[in-house]
């Protein structure tokens, strides 16, 4: 794609200009977290330098300015994922906290002993462990839909696992370990046919594609800011308004109440009911700035550019003898997980680092996925919109060199 403004985009990310071990940085660990553009960094310092105070409280000018920025960011998130109201946008620390929030409020109120929660075999630990903890406390049962050797959900098996006892379907939109994009429309339709609510873990999907929660018709959608070019420590829980209204609050404290006496407390309206305490104001503002930046580039343009990167990387990697790609789904985002014959991913990681290349080596918080593919770990190159084919060439040449050294 000749129109994608890659040079301008790269120039927007100050960290990419540096050298690592005397080599130009090639940052390919974007699935773990991605780097921040200058506009995001500036938005945070601008707030602290000129507009910072606590939100929703003071009648003074700074508090009103900070509140405007904070609520303005909520508006941007709402538009970005096409929610129908800002009441449906809850700020949390990240996707992990969002899932835990749903487990300790929605699930607690609606899922009982013997009921089932259905996930897939490719979930991140953050969409496994909260449900295991919940099941342990309540006697609910966690069901896991299997995947095939390409790393795709076996949809027929998934469908069979939906039963009258299923009270929640919670699946990853795009797998962080494999890159697989799940057939979420089909999944949601199947669950809706039985009136089962669906939670999508969008932590990995959100920086790579347009997400329209109304079109998807999911009940909950969660994601983290730090994978979306925004600060770490901020994330979003989207929930349909009716569901959120009916849910008990998450944490108690300031801002989530309307009226407090020692006898009883009346909770605040949405979205504040779920935002107890002073929020991470500057990070929310940073998230808003990241969204403005992405909207200007266009998520569909980003998706198309990254698809080209992935195709290029996959083709190059396939030609390397002894390299096995882990995760070969037909529908896949820009993640290349791989193993090399007789060379452990940690050795790959250290060797590539000495060439200035940052990849992830490990289990990617998805140990069950590693077990399924019978590998202790994988090496993972994950791409963002600021990566280039030249960087993929550097990666592939690095892999070839280290294979030679290990002999």
């Amino acid at each position: 794609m000749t129109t994608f403004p890659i040079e301008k985009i790269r120039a927007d990310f100050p960290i990419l200009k540096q050298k690592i071990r005397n080599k130009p940085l090639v940052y390919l660990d974007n699935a773990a977290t991605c780097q921040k553009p200058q506009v995001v960094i500036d938005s945070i310092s601008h707030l602290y330098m000129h507009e910072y105070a606590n939100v929703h409280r003071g009648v003074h000018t700074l508090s009103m300015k900070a509140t405007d920025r904070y609520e303005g960011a909520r508006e941007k998130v709402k538009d970005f994922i096409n929610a129908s109201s800002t009441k449906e946008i809850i700020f949390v620390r990240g996707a992990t906290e969002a899932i835990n929030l749903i487990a300790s409020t929605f699930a607690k109120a609606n899922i009982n002993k013997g009921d089932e929660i259905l996930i897939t075999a490719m979930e991140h630990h953050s969409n496994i462990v909260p449900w295991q903890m919940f099941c342990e406390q309540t006697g609910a049962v966690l069901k896991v839909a299997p995947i095939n050797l390409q790393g795709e959900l076996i949809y027929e098996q998934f469908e069979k696992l939906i039963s009258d006892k299923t009270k929640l379907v919670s699946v990853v939109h795009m797998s962080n370990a494999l890159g697989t994009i799940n057939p979420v429309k089909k999944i949601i339709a199947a669950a809706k046919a039985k009136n089962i609510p669906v939670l999508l873990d969008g932590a990995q999907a959100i920086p790579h594609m347009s997400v329209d929660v109304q079109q998807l018709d999911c009940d909950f959608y969660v994601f983290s800011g730090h994978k979306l070019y925004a600060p770490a420590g901020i994330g979003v829980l989207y929930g349909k308004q009716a569901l959120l209204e009916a849910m008990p609050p998450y944490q108690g404290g300031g801002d989530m109440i309307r009226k407090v006496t020692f006898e009883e407390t009346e909770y605040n309206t949405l979205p504040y009911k779920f935002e107890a305490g002073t929020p991470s104001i500057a990070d929310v503002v940073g998230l808003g700035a990241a969204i403005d930046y992405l909207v200007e580039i266009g998520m569909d343009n980003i998706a198309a550019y990254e698809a080209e990167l992935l195709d290029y990387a996959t083709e190059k990697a396939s030609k390397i003898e002894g390299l096995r790609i882990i995760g070969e789904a037909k529908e896949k985002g820009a993640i290349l997980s791989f193993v090399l014959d007789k060379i452990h991913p940690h050795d790959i990681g250290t060797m590539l680092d000495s060439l200035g290349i940052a990849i992830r080596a490990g289990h990617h918080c998805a140990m069950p996925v590693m077990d399924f593919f019978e590998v202790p770990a994988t090496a993972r190159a994950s791409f963002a919109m600021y990566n280039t084919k030249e960087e993929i060439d550097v990666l592939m040449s690095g892999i070839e060199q280290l294979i030679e050294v290990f002999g």
Partner: protein
Amino acid sequence: MFDDLRDLYQEVIFDHNRNPRNFRVMENADRKVEGFNPLCGDRLTLFLKMNGDEIVDASFQGSGCAISTASVSLMTEIVKGKTEAEADALFKQFHEMTTGKEDNIDLEAIGKLAVLAGVREYPARVKCATLAWHTLDAALKNEANSISTE
């Protein structure tokens, strides 16, 4: 090529990674302990044959990175014929070499293990080198975690 890594990946390490020594199941082991590094998935089983407090044989099975494989391979070589106290002293020396101050190391005692000193500069890889020794430490100290074939 990879000049910066020469201190970390010395030829001895590649050699032990390609051809690990004492890489076998020991049928008549007196101690058998599993070592696991959940962070990177390295997994090894260490077997010891004891005569009183002397380690008369040591072997291992498992999979790990080059650093961890070389470390356990070298360890099984060096601890053979050592008493428990001598092995423990080596463990402390090794720990010092990979995490502590350079001055405190008895280079003569540490012998070939010195090839692993390079991990000191790579905090993320220290655990790869020390897994073997922590497993040995468990085998020597914590009998509850070891099994006896007798």
